[in-house]
């Protein structure tokens, strides 16, 4: 690297890192904001899930047969249970279920046990248990499922045992005696799958955001303040100045991106047993890691060059912000598109679309399905574009029209 470039990089980094306000506004504040945002989002989802689990349902049971209470106890079904007599009115209870105040009404036929004991074979009456619940209420349907599958099941089991003696004879076969052991999945891949929805999108927009806020200040800002021309007077090539600017911006952008991504991860991790899965379960092979890092690096350089191109042509920072907005929207759209359509099954030609392709690549990488052609094409197009744009930036730096409005 040329000496001039090195000196400029050093100065640019010093400028940012000796300015407490800049550090605060560029790195710390957005990081904390992102973390808090995702924590709150996580907590809300979390609360919803655990709230349903914690809720003690209100249940009414009419004509409760003898032995049901024991079965409820044995099955561990927890509820506030009110027992009704045959003469009690149930219409008001049903209204209350509709309103969401009561969760479940269970009505046993009158003389339920007698009918069962009277059973002697074909054609004899079989009694009914009728449940009333509200499927539009999360609590109600959960209470009903739980009551039917645990308490009633246990009750029926005991009655069966009484009637036939050996219940095993009726069992015929078991399904999943140990349910946990039937789940077969690669946890890394499962985590990757859920992350692959969100992460490429986040990476893209956060990187661009970083490049945007840093680049506009470092280029349009300097132009406005008249400090850029002092550099143009030094005996180094404009190309070196541009390189110095772009590289320092790329370093700062990468840093901000790392901070943002870490903040997102910490935020999401706060979501207990997170629906995003455990990020530490993600495992990259060394090759995959290199692939990920190179994609990110080229992407950062491209973003920085694009922002620099816009920033150098703008006369004021406000103007620059206006020009850069459409670019931001394009980046966002390209990233959002990949959120809803998987990458693996996409044709190779999609990997020639800059920005969109980096999203696809990261998606495929997270689920371990990135092919070398896809990777090569992506890196190639991104690098070519970055090179072209940075050449245009150098051209702008050489233009007196752009630099001095002349």
């Amino acid at each position, binding site marked *: 690297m040329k000496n001039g470039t090195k*000196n400029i990089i050093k*100065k640019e980094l010093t400028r940012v890192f000796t*300015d407490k306000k800049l550090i605060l506004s560029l790195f710390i504040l957005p990081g904390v904001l992102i973390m808090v945002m995702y924590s709150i989002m996580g907590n809300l989802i979390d609360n919803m899930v655990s709230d349903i689990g914690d809720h003690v349902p209100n249940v009414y049971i009419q004509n409760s047969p003898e032995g049901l209470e024991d079965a409820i106890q044995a099955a561990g079904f927890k509820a506030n249970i009110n027992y009704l007599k045959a003469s009690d009115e149930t219409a008001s209870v049903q209204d209350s279920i509709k309103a969401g105040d009561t969760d479940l009404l269970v009505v046993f036929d009158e003389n339920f046990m007698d009918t069962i004991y009277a059973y002697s074979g074909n054609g004899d009456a079989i009694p009914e248990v009728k449940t009333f619940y509200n499927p539009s209420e999360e609590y109600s349907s959960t209470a009903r499922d739980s009551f039917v599958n645990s308490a009633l099941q246990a009750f029926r089991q005991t009655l069966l045992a009484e009637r036939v003696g050996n219940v095993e004879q009726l069992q015929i076969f078991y399904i999943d005696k140990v349910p946990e052991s039937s789940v077969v999945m690669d946890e890394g891949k499962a985590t990757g799958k859920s992350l692959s929805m969100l992460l490429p999108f986040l990476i893209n927009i956060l990187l661009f955001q970083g490049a945007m806020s840093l680049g506009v200040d470092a280029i349009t800002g300097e132009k406005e*303040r008249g400090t850029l*021309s002092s550099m143009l007077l030094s005996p*180094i090539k404009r190309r070196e100045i541009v390189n110095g600017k772009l590289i320092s911006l790329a370093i700062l952008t990468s840093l901000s991106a790392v901070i943002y991504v870490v903040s997102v991860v910490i935020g999401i991790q706060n979501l207990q047993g997170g629906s995003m899965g455990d990020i530490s379960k993600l495992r990259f092979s060394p090759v995959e890691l290199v692939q990920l890092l190179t994609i990110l690096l080229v992407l950062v350089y491209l973003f920085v060059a694009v922002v620099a191109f816009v920033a150098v042509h703008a006369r004021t920072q406000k103007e620059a912000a206006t020009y850069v907005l459409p670019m931001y929207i394009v980046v966002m759209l390209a990233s959002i598109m990949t959120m809803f359509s998987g990458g693996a099954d996409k044709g190779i030609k999609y990997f020639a679309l800059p920005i969109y392709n980096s999203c696809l690549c990261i998606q495929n990488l997270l689920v371990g399905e990135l092919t070398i052609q896809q990777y090569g094409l992506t890196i190639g197009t991104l690098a070519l574009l970055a090179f072209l744009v940075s050449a245009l930036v150098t051209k702008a730096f050489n233009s007196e029209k752009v630099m001095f409005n002349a």
Partner: protein
Amino acid sequence: MICINNLTKVYKLTRKQMQEQKTKKNMKKAVDQLSLKAVPGEIYGLLGPNGAGKTTVLRCVATLLKPTDGSISVGGIDTLDKSEEIRKKISFLTNEIKLDPQFSAKYMFNFFGRLHGLDEAAINERREYLFNYFGIKGFEDKKIDELSTGMKQKASLAVSLVHDPEIVIFDEPTTGLDIVTARSVTDYLKLLKEEGKTIIISTHIMTEAEKLCDRIGIIIDGRLVMEGTLDEILKDTNTADLEDAFFELYKQNSREEACI
């Protein structure tokens, strides 16, 4: 040595600029067929009213702008040829070019010293000398942002001289300075002259031109209307002092505003 041959500089105006300047032409000829020569060991002064084209000429000399027509050679090199080589030899000071407000004068001095390829020892020695001369020592570690206009000007001056350039191009170097500081600047320019440097400055202060400059070029509306030593100019215009001479020339040459 600075040789300007038939320099013409035309600015293309944007629509907004055309409105601001109330003109229908989308071109502004800021410098028109201007030729001059500044040699080592002399101070050449460009004297002219606001908007005459002084800054434009000096920017062209400093390689920041390219001539629309004509040519400029600085230290024997054409400005279109190897502009980096020229920038090694020159110091250019103008009030639109500023030092980074977040850094101290010391940091800026060292930074530009390095960009000029000087080693640390040379930079330190040079800094000691210049900061002492211009009285910057006392605030060398303060951010440029926190300095007064004059202090900033002094810092810019010192930084522009970090590499001990053989050609010095100063655009209105004393504007905004109090008389004490202004005097230290003009004294330093005389010192540089004695060292055999080539110096070109612009000014619209008559006394400065009279006292400091060995030769004076009067520029009006982008054209060099007269050039010579103070005595030659007074003789040619048949006047008693530079101010009278200037007004005489202004009357003759100002195109549209001839009524003043």
